[in-house]
C-alpha cells in the first residue's frame, strides 16, 4: 500500500512537472495519483531479482550518424514562435527581476 500522498509531495511533483494546478485540480490530481499508485503497487509482488531493466525491446545502442550542417530559412521556424523580434524569439527576462 502506497503511503498517502502529502501536500508536500504534490508541491514537489508540481515543480517537477512545471504545472501550477488550482486548488480544485490539485485535489483531483492527488486522488487520481493515489488511486493509480495503489494500483501500480501490484508490481511490488513481482520478483525481479537479477532482471536487467528493459529500456528498449531490441538491443540497439548508440546509433551514430554524421552531424551534417545545412542552411534553412529561419523565418520559417520563427513563424511558429509565440513572440518574435528581429529574427529572435522573445522570452521573459531571465536574469535579474522583471521590470
Amino acid at each position, binding site marked *: 500500500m502506497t503511503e498517502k500522498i502529502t501536500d508536500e509531495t504534490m508541491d514537489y*511533483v508540481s515543480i517537477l512537472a512545471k*504545472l501550477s494546478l488550482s486548488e480544485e485540480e490539485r485535489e483531483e490530481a492527488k486522488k487520481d495519483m493515489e488511486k493509480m499508485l495503489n494500483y501500480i503497487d501490484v*508490481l511490488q509482488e*513481482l520478483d525481479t531479482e537479477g532482471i536487467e*531493466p528493459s529500456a528498449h525491446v531490441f538491443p540497439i545502442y548508440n546509433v551514430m550518424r554524421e552531424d551534417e550542417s545545412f542552411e534553412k530559412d529561419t523565418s520559417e521556424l520563427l513563424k511558429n514562435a509565440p513572440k518574435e523580434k528581429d529574427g529572435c524569439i522573445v522570452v521573459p527576462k531571465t536574469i535579474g527581476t522583471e521590470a
Partner: protein
Amino acid sequence: MEIIKLSALEIGEKIQKREVSVPEVVKAFYHQIEQKEKDINAFITLDEEQAMKRAAQVQEGIEKGIYTHPLAGVPAGIKDNICTKEFKTTCGSKMLENFTPFYEANVIESLKSIGAVLIGKTNMDEFAMGSTTETSYFGVTKNPHNTDHVPGGSSGGSCAAVAAKECAYSLGSDTGGSIRQPSSFCGVVGMKPTYGTVSRYGLVAYGSSLDQIGPIGTNVSDVAAILEVIASYDKKDSTSIQRKDYQFMKALHEDVKGMRIGIPKGYVGDGLDDEVKEALYNMAKTYEKAGAKVEEFDLDLVKYAIPTYYTVASAEASSNLARFDGVKYGYRTEKSSGLEGMYNHTRTEGFGQEVKRRIMLGSYVLSSGYYEAYYLKALKAKALIKKSFDEAFSTYDIILAPAAPTTAPAIGESLKDPLKMYLGDIYTISANLAGLPGISMPVGRDTKGLPIGIQLIGNCFEESKLIQAAYTYESLTGGGK
C-alpha cells in the same frame, strides 16, 4: 458502385486504368465529408482547395508515368500527431492549436513519394493519451456506426474517418493499443507494426519506447499495401530497424494450414464481454476448420501489463512533453510572471486534464526516492513480460486475443473513471511493451449493432504471418461485414 465505397487498392486500380481521375476521387471523398463530418467530427483540419491542387498534380504524374504505385492518387487521412508541412499538426491540444511543422514526418515523405493525396488531419485524444477520442481540445469524435458511442482512441479520428468513408485509408499511432482498439470499435482493420519498423521521425512523441505508426484500412489487403509504403529503415530515427523483408503484400494469400494459434487463458476470463468472447471462439473455429491448430495456454504476467505500461508511458510522457514550454513554438500564456511563471502557466493552460494527470504521475515515478520503486521496477517487469511472450512464441505462430473487453462504450461513460478506462487496454498494451506486431480486424457485430474486433498478435518481425492469417479469415468469412 460509388467510388468512396471501394477499398483503397480498388480505387487505386481504377485510377491506374483511367476509369476515374484523382481529382474526381478527391472530390467524391470531400462530398462525403460534407455529408458526414458534422455528425462524426473525425477531422481537426481539412483543406479541400489544397487537396484538389495536389490531386491535379498527382493525376499529371500518373499520366506521365511517374506514379505507378497501386495506391497512387488514393486519399488518406493522417492522425494529427504526425508532422505535415501543409496542415497544422495539433496533437488534439490547445498547446499546438496553431502549430504548422517546418518539416514532415518520414511516413509523409514515403506516402507522397508514391503519389498519395492527404485529405486532412484526423482527431485524436490529446497527445494520444486516452482510449476514446474524448480528450481532444477540438471536440469528441463519434462512432460512425452509432453516434452515441465513442470511436475508441487515441486514433479515433483516423478509424472513424475510414469507417465513415471520409477517406480511403489513414495512418494512426499506437502506444498502448491506439490503432487496434479504435479499429475494433469502428469495424476497420488496423495494424501496429513491430517496434522500429516504421520511422517515428516526425511523430510527436508520447511514450517513445512504445510508440509506433501504423496503417488503418477497410480490409487486410489495404493495410498490407500501406504498411509496405510506410515501413523503412530511417537514419533519423535511432530506434529504426533495418529489416530483411518489406514486401508485406506477398503475404496476402489464403493459407493457415499447420499454423499454431494460441489463446491466452487470462484473456478470455473475467471482464471480457460474452459477445466478444463468442466472436473470438467463432474465429478460432474458422481457423481450425481451415487447418490451423488452436489451443488455450497460460500466458504469464498478464495482470502486470497495465501497471507496467502506465508507469513506463507516463514517465516517458512527462519527459517528452517537457518541451512544451511556450518558448519556441506552441501556446504561450498571456500572464506575465517571469520565465518560471511563463513555463508553469503555459503548461497549465495549454494541457488538458488527462495529459496533466499523466505528466504528474510520470514526474512522480521518475522523482528521486521513487524512481527505483516504480520506474525501474516497471522496466524490469517489462523485460519479464517480453520473456513470457518469447516463450509463448516458441510454441505458437500467432496469439489470438480480443482487441478490447467490450464493443464501443457510450460517449461520456469512460472518462468518469480513468482507472477503469485504463483497464480496458489489457489486451493491447502487452504488444507495445514487448515490441510485437498486432492487427485488429472486424469479425461481426454485437446485438447493439456495434462492430466487434479481434486481434492477432505475432512475434517480432512476423507481420507477414499476421497478414496471411488475417487475410485468410477475411477471405473465408467476408471479414465481419
